[in-house]
């Protein structure tokens, strides 16, 4: 008997949510990066004394939750009991510190009550730059982690309430625009300290033992809830195979294979047969693979289950060492988001026969990115405009897919056309749904998005990272595949020249324009009559 019943536990859980949300907003407000302030590419969480996830902010991102949990395991392993009130830990490295790519920097603060460690307060944020060979630390063409930026192992940056400025100076020296990064680091530190204060207040109210018992009970109930959900999957072995187009450097047709074994409510995901890690930066550490698998499972079985360690750990995941789903040092990983989308697709594809009334056809399955850069003729200043573009969502057993929407592991918004044209010397000629890109079906797939952009008064450079240009989003249950993505150069007279799915440093002349079509999505079920889309 923990002393917490269904009522007391709900009130504790509400208090934890409130703390996480307050830290989330505090971090957002105090940060400097557009990524954090406006796109909310950050998350906050509370862990128990063993570093196990108890609660997260509502708006936390799935991949961040895995990273925060990964950092905690490294901190516990490295520092053991040598953790004291006022300490603050930081890390970002995917290979040695539980991260998934370098721009995501993790902070964790221990919380003590009456001299006893009761919890950790964590936050993670995507910095606009973490150093490395290209501005933004996210470009294609990087083939090992060293090129991607500063690697931070689990490090004690705060000791007994004081920040170690010398460590922070190393971080800042390794980032472009260090003044802005200083703002982001301080925002993260302040959010961690705020969370520490709030959890301390909670600890005083419930006592160290009470908090520990409440956390245990929350984990136990969460474990029971997710175990119930897993039982929905009938026993059997379910396999699926899909392919990514390429890594943008050397490898094409990158195979993903998964075998899902369900046996009396226990699920194992085996990625044997999945391609070796690539030279290009689309590799996943096992933590990133896990976050994508868990995303797919939650979406299919219990979308409103709170994320806890019990949810993260609810299934076994095996992926061959050195495969793209379990990449080893020194793999480059910055573009992991595309690959996470593909892991979600193969997991959903595998479970489709097991959960025929839940699994939709393949969504656009990409994280289509378009970057325009150059020198603004109006003021002679360099500019970079980056956008990730949504696509179709798959036709569903109960209804059609949605047109033009983010799917899977991402949910970031677009930039208004009026903002693009005011801030950059660019003109958007067309912004709409890509015609014909929704896969036909009883419930058609959603359409992708078309964006046509022209440089104004100068020539600009285009970098594009697309996926599902050659391997279209699959249909399900007789539905047709969705339209693939495509990039093209449109000349002044309207002729179109196709561009590769990973287009690097293409010069767009004045009068020319670049067309970006993000992929549509697969249809579900045999079309009733004529084709659709």
């Amino acid at each position, binding site marked *: 008997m923990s002393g917490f019943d*269904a009522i007391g536990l709900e009130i504790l*859980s509400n208090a934890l949510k409130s703390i996480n*949300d307050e830290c989330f907003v505090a971090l957002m407000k105090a940060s400097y990066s557009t990524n954090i302030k406006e796109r909310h590419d950050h998350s906050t969480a509370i862990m128990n004394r063993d570093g196990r996830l108890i609660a997260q902010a509502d708006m936390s991102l799935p991949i961040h939750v895995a990273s925060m949990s990964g950092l905690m395991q490294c901190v516990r392993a490295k520092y053991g009991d040598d953790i004291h009130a006022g300490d603050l830990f930081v890390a970002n490295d995917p290979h040695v510190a539980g991260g998934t790519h370098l721009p995501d920097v993790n902070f964790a603060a221990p919380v003590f009550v009456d001299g006893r460690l009761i919890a950790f307060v964590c936050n993670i944020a995507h910095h606009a730059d973490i150093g490395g060979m290209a501005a933004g630390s996210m470009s294609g063409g990087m083939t090992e982690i060293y090129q991607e930026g500063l690697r931070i192992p689990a490090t004690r940056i705060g000791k007994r309430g004081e920040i170690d400025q010398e460590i922070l100076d190393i971080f800042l020296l390794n980032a472009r625009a260090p003044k802005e990064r200083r703002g982001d680091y301080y925002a993260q530190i302040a959010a961690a300290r705020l969370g520490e204060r709030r959890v301390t207040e909670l600890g005083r109210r419930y006592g160290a033992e009470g908090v520990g018992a409440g956390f245990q009970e929350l984990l136990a109930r969460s474990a029971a809830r997710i175990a119930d959900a897993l039982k929905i999957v009938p026993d059997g072995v379910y396999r699926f195979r899909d392919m990514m187009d390429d890594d943008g450097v050397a490898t094409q047709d990158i195979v993903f294979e998964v075998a899902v074994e369900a046996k009396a409510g226990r699920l194992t995901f085996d990625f044997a047969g999945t391609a070796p890690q690539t030279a290009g930066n689309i590799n996943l550490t096992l933590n990133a693979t896990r976050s994508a698998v868990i995303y797919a499972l939650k979406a299919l079985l219990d979308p409103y289950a709170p994320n806890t360690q019990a949810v993260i750990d609810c299934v076994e995941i095996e992926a061959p060492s050195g495969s793209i789903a379990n990449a080893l040092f020194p793999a480059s990983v910055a573009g992991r988001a595309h690959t996470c989308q593909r892991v979600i697709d193969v997991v959903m594809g595998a479970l489709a026969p097991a959960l025929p009334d839940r699994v939709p056809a393949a969504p656009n399955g990409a994280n289509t990115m378009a970057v325009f850069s150059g020198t603004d003729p109006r003021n002679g200043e360099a500019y970079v405009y980056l956008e990730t573009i949504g696509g179709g969502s798959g036709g569903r057993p109960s209804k059609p897919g949605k047109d033009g929407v983010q799917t899977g592991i991402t949910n970031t918004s677009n930039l208004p056309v009026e903002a693009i044209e*005011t801030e950059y010397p660019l003109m958007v000629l067309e912004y709409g749904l890509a015609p014909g890109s929704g896969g036909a079906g009883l419930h058609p797939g959603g359409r992708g998005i078309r964006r046509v952009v022209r440089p104004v008064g100068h020539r600009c450079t285009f970098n594009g990272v697309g996926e599902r240009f050659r391997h279209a989003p699959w249909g399900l249950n007789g539905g047709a595949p969705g339209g693939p993505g495509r990039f093209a150069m449109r000349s002044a007279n309207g002729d179109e020249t196709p561009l590769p799915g990973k287009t690097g440093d293409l010069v767009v002349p004045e009068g020319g324009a670049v067309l970006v079509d993000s992929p549509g999505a697969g249809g579900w079920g045999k079309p009733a009559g004529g084709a659709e889309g």
Partner: protein
Amino acid sequence: MAWTVGVDVGGTFTDFHARDDATGREVVFKRPSTPTDPGEAILSGLKALSAAHDVPLEAVTRVAHGTTVATNALIQRRGARIAAVATQGFRDLLEIGRQVRPHMYDLNLDKPEPLAGPALRFEVAERLDYRGEPVTPLTDAEAARAAAEIAASGAEAVAICFLFAYLNPAHEQKLAAAIRERAPDMRISLASDVQPEFREYERFQTTAINAYLQPLTAGYVERLAVGLREIAPMATLGVNQSSGGLMSPVRTSAYPVRTALSGPAAGAVGAAHIARRAGRPNVATLDMGGTSADVALITDGLTEIAFQRAVAGFPIRLAMVDIDTVGAGGGSIAWFDRDGLMKVGPRSAGAEPGPACYGQGGTEPTVTDANLVLGRLAETGLLDGAMPLRRDLAAAAIRPLAERVGVSLEAAALGLLAIAVANMTRSVRRMSVERGRDPRDFALMAFGGAGPLHARDVAAELGMADVLVPPAPGIVCAEGLLVSDQKEDFVASQRLPLAEASLEAARAAVAGLTADAAAWFAAEDLPDAGRTLELALDLRYVGQNFELITPVAAGPAIGPADLPGVDALAALFFAAHDRAYGFHDPAAAIEIVNFRMTARGRLYRASDPPAAPDAAATPVSVGHRPVWFTPSGPVEAPVYRREALSPGLTFEGPAIVDQLDATTPVFPGDRVEVRADGSLLITLGGGGA
């Protein structure tokens, strides 16, 4: 005699608050609402009010109205069949929106279907650049072609939104004229009128909603105005806007989207008025009804304003009173989630069947049932016994909870209330702590039928020192309408660097707004004496994607000369940035994005304060009942009638204060002071938390 009447239409009741401007005499009145035509209850209610309280209808000079007609039409998707017209290449803007989905994990939860289907989305060959200059001029032939198609489309209303037309409305206006020629009866909403601001999707969506609501709302307001003229020929009608402040029926018909939050805004305006009058200008409001609770912050006697909010899943970008709504009301139902944790709301038993204790067939346990089990509500119920409550049914509904959790009936009821309180506490934290304000600097003002029952627990949870209960907690919205100004917001969207070189253009923008405001004052025929203007600028750092609305001047008349200099504007922006984000950068470049002018005409005249009270020594109770304040057991609490508590009186809990439409439990150790305006100020003591 010159009577003013505030009328707030709620889901269950239509509330009236009438006041004689000459004598200060006030009358409150309630009638059941008539949802199919809300105007019916207003007109018949006015007649009944007149008869019952000796208020001659020919002496009514103003009727101020808070309405949910627009909100409900949007939620229930009962608006017009609309056409949506965009710049060529952008017909899908409404469909794509911001390309985000409403929930990260739920694969079946979708953003709402666009208000204009694919067959009613039109493109027009025209284009302005980012300075508002034509790149592709709209030709007469193209305007004629598009207008003919739109006129023949079968749409009842049309929304037109061209890129950058907030800088130059010529193309939108040209197409509107062409449509009007062919379809004189079609209602036309131009984005450059409805919301002339940067960001095409939000502007288009706001305009589309306006068009969608126009036929219905215009019909309603025009019918109501005619009906009112028949029974009260001297009365002018004002409709409350989401930002607080009234507008005329003509403007309501033109801009119905501005009434999307008309009702809740009236509550916040009423609360601000009562807060000022009670001498506590800083309050957080807890307006708790049957299905939800609204929380707003009032600072220095003023409501805080937000500039975007979702209604029925659609973003509306207009000035609105900043309100957070949480699914915690008297009818909120307790249930167990899949992990076994107990939750309360957002599902509600509503008015039909209502809580189990209403005896109308409801069996699920609600907040009201818990209050009855604990003795905080009496079995005689609300409305002076006209609506008795059955404790046996309440207990039967709560008992399964108690059995499942393994606690006593009363512990389960206290737990149910504690969860509802935790949800409201989070909401107050969102509105205060997350906006850089400390809730301990505020009193908690409780109103709505259920607010006073729970405010004490919410206040204790947040460390707030006291709770303020208005004299008539059930009709704060109607009171807000009574005291509202006539108001209009003007905006000019123009991006300028904050620099000396921009000041000429900036002054020109202000001059334009001043002229707009002068024209509006004249058109509305508002007395000179009560006219005020407020000028604010939307400022941001260059490169930021969000603005801070920074008030820069206010007074009876504002012209270009009142625009402060560059340094003064920067200082105001720094202070706003500090408040919102905790820091500012003195070296970074700042830009102006929008100029905003708010024009107000004061209509309400405060009367003399009520006569000094005869301080009664002790209150006289009308009985006792056992009340569970804490899990340790019931306490015999004296019951007082609210109308018997005169100003100046003080007493300590435990006690229960009953009135027509609200009950206030006073916890043991808490101290009540009846303020001069009749409000109860409850100072929290040590016990009972």
